[in-house]
């Protein structure tokens, strides 16, 4: 086993509007290794969900992929015809959305939704598929699955519904699961249960996860690596513990300091002045520069993702090339 499972290179997504094209994702590159959990974190509008949608080929018009490539196990999937993509979606890439109420069909029994999914992706008979559906319900922790399998979504609580959605996403045993804010709609106590369920199940089945969330706490508990997004770009990427303990990009630093913690009652929270720019007004150069306390002349030019060890930060502060050192002195 070599090579990444998912490889995204220089992904650009544009939205055509009356006022011209808006670039929603700009030069997004990352890899996910088999079995790895990559957390994608950022504030609303940073492009997290859009990245997920682009990977599974569910971008809605007027959004479209305008450049770059997405490879799953070495095979390009960003330019496949819809019919081929449909075979990959569900079978090789499972999806978990935020709201379990809208991702389940309210008119279909839970068991039928699972059975249908299993039948669509696996060469087995209906009876066998139903047995597997029940096994999956028990695996995601639904009590007495033999009875609940014929229930409708409205008969389940929020947490139980999200468990069913997880079963649906995993039942075809995909290599990659894209989970978009899987716990945001849930209460804290239920959220903790769902996180540990997702973590354990994907590990047991060897599936990689792209975990999209705005909650750094969820990332800290779940992810192996994390990508921080800002204004449609990756600001920083790296191993989760290191990134949280020692954030490199000034945006990540500000973001981490702004999160209130349970441990101590701070006098004041650190705050980043201003707000993330709108897509129509992303500044030239570094998108964070106008809010950055450490900005300097170089930031008028857009920084690439600069590698520092096995981490990367899109910030000129980490440019160690001789030319850069000259400028700073």
């Amino acid at each position, binding site marked *: 086993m070599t090579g990444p499972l998912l490889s995204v290179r220089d992904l650009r997504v544009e939205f055509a509007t009356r006022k011209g094209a808006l670039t929603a994702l700009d030069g997004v590159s990352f890899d996910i290794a088999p079995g790895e959990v990559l957390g994608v974190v950022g*504030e*609303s509008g940073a492009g997290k969900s859009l990245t997920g949608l682009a990977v599974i080929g569910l971008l809605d018009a007027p959004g479209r992929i305008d450049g770059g490539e997405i490879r799953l196990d070495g095979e390009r999937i960003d330019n496949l015809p819809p019919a081929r993509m449909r075979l990959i979606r569900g079978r090789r890439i499972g999806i978990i959305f935020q709201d379990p109420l809208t991702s389940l069909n309210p008119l279909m029994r839970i068991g039928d939704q699972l059975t249908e999914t299993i039948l669509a992706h696996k060469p087995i008979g209906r009876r066998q598929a139903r047995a597997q559906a029940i096994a999956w319900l028990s695996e995601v922790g639904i009590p007495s699955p033999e009875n609940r399998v014929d229930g409708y979504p409205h008969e389940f609580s929020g947490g139980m519904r999200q468990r069913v959605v997880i079963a649906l996403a995993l039942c075809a045993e995909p290599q990659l699961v894209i989970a978009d804010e899987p716990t945001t709609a849930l209460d804290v106590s239920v*959220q903790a249960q769902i996180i540990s369920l997702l973590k354990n199940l994907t590990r047991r089945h060897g599936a990689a996860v792209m975990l999209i969330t705005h909650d750094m*706490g969820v990332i*800290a508990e779940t992810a192996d690596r994390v990508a921080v997004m800002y204004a449609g770009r990756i600001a920083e990427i790296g191993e989760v513990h290191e990134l949280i303990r020692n954030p490199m990009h000034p945006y990540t630093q500000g*973001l981490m300091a702004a999160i209130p913690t*349970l441990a101590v009652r701070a006098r*004041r929270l650190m705050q980043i002045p201003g*707000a993330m720019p709108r897509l129509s007004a992303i500044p030239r150069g570094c998108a964070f520069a106008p809010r950055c306390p450490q900005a300097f002349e170089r930031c008028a030019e857009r920084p690439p993702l600069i590698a520092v060890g096995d981490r990367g930060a899109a910030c000129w502060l980490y440019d160690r090339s001789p030319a850069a050192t000259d400028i700073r002195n």
Partner: protein
Amino acid sequence: MKAADPIVEVHGLGRVFDVSSPWVSRLIDGEPRRTLTAVDGLDFAIERGETFGLVGESGAGKSTLARMVVGLLEPSQGQVMIDGVDLAQTRDRPTRRAVRRRIQMIFQDPFASLNPRWRVGDIIAEPVRVFRPRDGGAGRLGRRAIAARVDELLELVGLHSADAPKFPHEFSGGQRQRIAIARAIAAHPDFIVCDEPTSALDVSIQAQILNLMRDLQERLGLTYLLITHNLAVVRFMATRVGVMYLGRLVEIGETDALFARPRHPYTRMLLDAVPDLSMSGRARTPIGGEPPNPIDPPPGCPFHPRCPKAIAICKSERPLFGDNVACHLAGADEPGPAAE
């Protein structure tokens, strides 16, 4: 427990909602009336100048309580006293008016709580106009004075006086919440009920709003009732915390003490459930189950089906709220200091 200088006192406050099906369906199906007890016999006081945080999961009755405290909803039982005046009982207009001015509210969704057809200046000026002195005395505000007050308020919340003629859609979520705060403080209130004021905002914006709320509290001597499901926000803002479960208070305590040594098993569970950013790898008590349906709450202690420490009495007898906690085991089997 009696607060030294309470601004708000809540006595035996309860609210029951009728959630029955329409009567025709009830007649056909032979269904009885069904009620939901959203808030059940609450007693607490909020001291002047403090921030009282109220936490709980969805369905705990937090927002119902908030609406009763500000007088948007009539209690089914009990009373809310603001500086000794019970709004629901007082019919004397000048008294009601005087109390009303002193209570304001900040809502969760800054996109829904501002009228999209009003200019920001008018939104903020409304409470100034409504609550201006009536009898034409020295305090009477003219147009110019109102405009000056609006400018002052905008600057106070970190916006610009040039923002007054704009419409809400021209602002981001965080800026809109600033507008909502400016409106709330416009009539010089003493007490503000904040219902999930930052839940709709991103963390970096949340930090700005929380800092602003604390600054304003210091400058204007405000008292807050802060309702949220986010424990870290309560930790940062509150001086005292009440924990609600299924319409009842299960524990009240000074913030530091409550976070360091939670006494009710539910509080302990809530604290354990918060994802740990410091990744200390602390041991967590995994607790199963979800909050039960408030239409059909469990008998005895409502938390007993999820409680790891439940004993026989918990299943049959509802624990009384005493010594700031509602748990049969409190005192006898006090959970040890938190392993933070």
